[in-house]
Each structure stands twice: as C-alpha cells, then as structure tokens.
C-alpha cells in the first residue's frame, strides 16, 4: 500500500501519529497507534511511513540544533513503543527484520558522547542498535556481532592512541575469516576518512549525521 492509496482519514491518522512522535508526546503517540491498529491500516505501511518520516524529522531537528541527545533517546524509545503496538497485527514471520549494528568505543577509551549520539541516531532511523558501551575489546565486538548475526560493527575512538584498536578489530575479522560477514564503520574526534581508507574500514562518519548516512548507504542500499 502506498501512502497515496490511503483514505484522507487514514492519512490524517498516520500524520497525527508521526506528529506525536516528533513532538515526543508518548500518550498521544500510543493512543493514535492503538487507533491505527483498529482502523485496518496495514501496520507494515504505517511503520514504513509514519515512523520512518518521524525519524527523518527528528534527525533534521537534531541537525538544525532544535533537538539534542535526550530528545533523540526519547524519540527512539517512543518509536520502539509504537512499533511494538503496530506489530501486534503482523504475523511474526512477516515482521520486517531490522539491520543490526553493534556499536561501542574501542579498548582503552572511555569517551562516550559521540558514540551515544551516533547509536541513538542510528536507532532512530530504524536500525537495531546494540551499544556495548566503552573500553570494548576486539574480541567482545566480534563475539557479540557473531552472536547477534549483526550486519555492521561501528567503532568509536576519541584518542589517537586508541585508533589502532579500530584497526585491530578489522585485522582480527580478517584473520578469523569473518571480514566479509560484517561491514565496519569507524569514527571519532581524531579519525579521518584517510585513516578509514588506510585500515580498510567500509564506512566513516565525520560526525553523527554523516555516520547515519554512511550506515544507510552500506546497509540499506543493498536491499
């Protein structure tokens, strides 16, 4: 079903759900999601349009400096709540499998603000993000990515002396014969595109906005 095929009432309902998410109004978003569920609108289409549009709008507000990390976290949680409501009418076999990203700050580094923003923005645009926290070893990244059948490993580093641990993860993946199983994206204050190319990372984000774009390019473009 395309959005253009919706009746004006259905379109209005999806618009108000989208607006409630963007406004971070949980009670309104939940109430409208329940109405969407009982209205007979295809819940998969509702997720695809209303939630995806809300995610884009929230990202734009972050880029414009209207929303900040707390709003990203709240909107991400709200999208989860609304999605779970809508998924009640979707047989489990038909639920859309989200691409999985394992993210963390590499070994020896405890800086988290950039990683937190990237993780939250990735989540808000529809990825299933597993945040392993800070000071994460290469073995932990790889183990978790294998366990979760992840699509991407995202590595953050704020220190020049911990950038080599980004390379270590890639080297370990190569030596374990797993390099082709996961896309690897890197970022962080001192990290450059040239460094990403040197260590043969698949993706790079100068900041959270670029990181999300690169993750979409790497994981969604291939279908």
């Amino acid at each position: 079903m395309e959005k253009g095929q919706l009746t004006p009432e259905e379109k209005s309902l999806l618009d108000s759900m989208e607006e409630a998410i963007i406004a971070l109004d949980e009670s309104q978003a939940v109430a409208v999601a329940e109405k969407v569920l009982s209205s007979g609108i295809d819940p998969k289409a509702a997720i695809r349009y209303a939630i995806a549009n809300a995610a884009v709008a929230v990202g734009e507000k972050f880029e414009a400096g209207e929303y900040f990390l707390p709003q990203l976290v709240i909107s991400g949680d709200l999208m989860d709540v609304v999605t779970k409501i809508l998924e009640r009418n979707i047989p489990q076999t038909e639920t859309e499998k989200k691409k999985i990203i394992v993210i963390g700050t590499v070994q020896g580094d405890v800086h988290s603000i950039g990683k937190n923003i990237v993780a939250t923005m990735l989540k808000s645009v529809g990825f299933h993000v597993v945040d392993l926290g800070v000071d994460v070893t290469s073995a932990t990244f790889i183990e978790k990515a294998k366990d979760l059948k992840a699509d991407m490993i995202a590595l953050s580093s704020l220190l020049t002396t911990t950038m080599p641990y980004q390379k270590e993860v890639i080297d370990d993946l190569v030596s374990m014969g797993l390099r082709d199983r996961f896309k690897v994206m890197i970022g962080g204050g001192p990290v450059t595109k040239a460094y990403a190319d040197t260590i043969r990372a698949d993706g790079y984000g100068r900041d959270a906005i670029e990181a999300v774009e690169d993750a979409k390019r790497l994981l969604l473009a291939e279908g």
Partner: protein
Amino acid sequence: MIPLVEIAERIQTGEKIEDKKWDKMFYENISRLAKKYGIVHPPQQSYINMDDDMVERAYEAAVEFLETMGLYCLTTRRRVALTRPEILTAIREAPTEILMGTERDRRVWKQRKIEGREKLNICPGHHAPFSEDLAGLVVCNFAQIPRTDFIEGFNFTHIDGREIIGPPLEIYASRRQIHWMREGVRKAGRPGLAVVYYPINTRAEDLIGVMDPEHGLRRTDGILLSLLPDLKMEEDMLSAAIVYDEYGSFKLSGSFAIIGGFCGGIEGAIIEGITKPIAATIAYRDTIHYTGVEHLHMLNGRQILVPHVNWARSVVNQALNRFTHTICMRWVIPTSGPGTDLCLWEVAMQSVEAPINGMNLYAPRHCRTTMNHGQTPLEAEWMIEVSDAVIEQGLDRQAGNELLGRISARFENQKPAAGQDIGECYDLVHHQPKEAYRESYDRVKAALRELGLTKLIQ
C-alpha cells in the same frame, strides 16, 4: 574539602546505577532545574550576558543540580553522593591562584574578574597532534612567546617510528612527550617554564609514568585530568589525582559543557557548565579549568557560530567568577584551520570574549585538528594582542557585545575554512608566519581596528 580518599571510598561503596539510568536522571534533573530557575535566553542579548540576576539563578541551579546528582564513576558504575555543605566547602576552599614553573620562569595563574583590567594568563599552544619530527621545534616556538605562562603537551600516533599501541608504548611515548617539552622550553631559553602533561591515554600508568623531577614532569608542572561530560569520573584519573596531590603538581580540567549531549540545549549546558568545574575540583582537585559552553556543531566544524552559544558561555563564566574561586580559561577553538583569515577572525572573537567574561586564554586549536594541522604560534600571539587591546580599551560588557556583533557579521553565509599544515603557513625555524599568512594577519588586524578595536597596535 572532601579528601580524595573519601571520594575513592565512595566510588566503591556508593549506590550502583547503570549508566543509561544515570544519563536519564541527568537530563531529567537538568531540564527540571532549568525551568525552576528560569534559565532562558533573553531577547536582545547576543554574545555577552548583561543580566546579573540570571547569573545568580544559574549558579543556584548548578549547586542544586550537583547536590541532586553527585558524581558518577564510569568504572565502578556507582554514584558518589555529595551533600550541599560538602559542595559549598569545596567552592569556598578552592584556590584563586596557582604557582607554577621555577626561577625566572615562575608564574602565578589567577582567577580573573569580569571586565577585569589585569592582563590575562596565557597558555599559547598544544593539546593538538604533532609528529615526532616536529615536536621539539614546535614546543620551542610556543615557549618563545614572551607571555607564555605554561605550555601543554601534545599527542602523536608514532614514537621512534612505531605506532603507539598498548600500555608499554603509551608509557614510553608519554615520557618522550615530556622530554620533548623540557627540551623545547630549554632551547627557547626558558628552562623553568611549567609544562602540562596532555594524557595520550587515560590509564593510571600513563598518567603517573611521566612523573620525574629530573627529566620528566616536575612538582612545579601540571597535568590535565578532565572530568568527562555528564559528571562522569574515572577510577584511573582519581588514582592519578591522589598521587599528584602528594607530588604537588597543579591540575587542569576540561570543564566545559557540550550542547547537544545529555545536558540538552543551552539552558542545560549553562547548568552543567557551572557544575562541572566545581565537580572536577571535588573529584580530582583540579584547580585551573577551561570553562564555558560549546556546541557539537561547532566542535565538529559544521558551523562557525550557533546562536546564543556565546551568550551561554558568558553566563557560565560570569557565574564562576562571581560565586566560586574557579580559575577559568577560554579554550580558543576556531572551526577554521590555521593559515586562513577566518581562523584569525574566529580567534579574535573568542579573545574579545575572554577578558570581558573573566577568563584567561588557552591553546588556540582547530576544532577538528589532525596531525600538524591544528595550530601555529601566530594564533597564540594574535589572541594575546586582541585580549590586551580589549583590556587597554576598557571594553565593558555592552561595548564588547557590540564589537562581537560586528565581528560575527563577517561569518554570515561563510563555511569554516580547512586551513593548512603548520609547515605550509608557518616558518618554525625563524619563528614567523609565511608570507601569505602574514598578509592574512595584516588584513584581519586592519579590519578589526576598523570595526572598533582601536587599541590594537599597528
């Protein structure tokens, strides 16, 4: 003040909290207090705060915030609870002056006054990456600037041609950093000048391994032990703080708040910006702080200016100067790289702000610096010149605000300029900018005089 060993005990015995819960509590409480104390940007105020009542409310909000939250130890996942009397005692007992360096290079760093008329204390450079072939020469150039009070170290990726990875190489590289610093200041004829260790990693062994009264970090030198955003502290930093407290070195902290993080917008950032240096004083006994408010888009080099950020920074520093003993520094962080007019304009703007808000000046450096691309001595000399002219001219908050408005008009529709490597725009052998950068400097200086900073010496 609460003994550091008491903090050491509390990080092991305090309430266990997951970091995600802490983050949630952080923004819920900061948002609530911003509303309770009416922290909002007033109309018609652009760059410098003129509302003294706002400053007082912001300070009260910050103390209540610290009392509500305490500190969070990222390593042990425990909350360090703080009482109001403990916080107020820490504020009262923090020093307003710090002695550093030895013999004729001995200096006193002081807390400044809002619109103060004394010349600023100066750290001219580093906190940026330089390659090992340039290290000694770069240090020597910054030490040659007569107003230099101390120089901070730098980071690098290779040592003796090897990539730095793992604690043994980190410790070795850390010690080399300080050796280069010592050698550089000696070559500049200033052997007693204080140097500050810039941690290339935050492990305790890296922080403590540089201590060496003969060839490394002396008791009269300093170390950067920063609190993380969102009032998060680390066990290794506290270990180092305890050791350095006995050793006698002074301690610096990166104590600004970042708009866009868990503090939210400018209102929350103002509260965190005031809270953080007080918290760093309690957590690590830091005494000199680079303070204020920055925006993620500016730190990432997306935008030269974001509305109201300068005003928020002004509120924070005025509050710290009026109600605490915090020795504030302005970390000058242009979004444009060295070798460009825009870089010099951005440095000028931040150097006008500093003396009016009561801040000293610290290490101008490109916001997203890469190897050998972050700074040259010219930006440091320029920031000194500009701040001296502001003081000489007696600019008050109103006049400063007007001048900053005229400067910021230069940035309209401009994107940050990439800039050049130090070797491309600066002659380190002769301690002077290369011709094109010299022309930039002359051009910007003449234009700034025309905009109203008439006390700039021609």
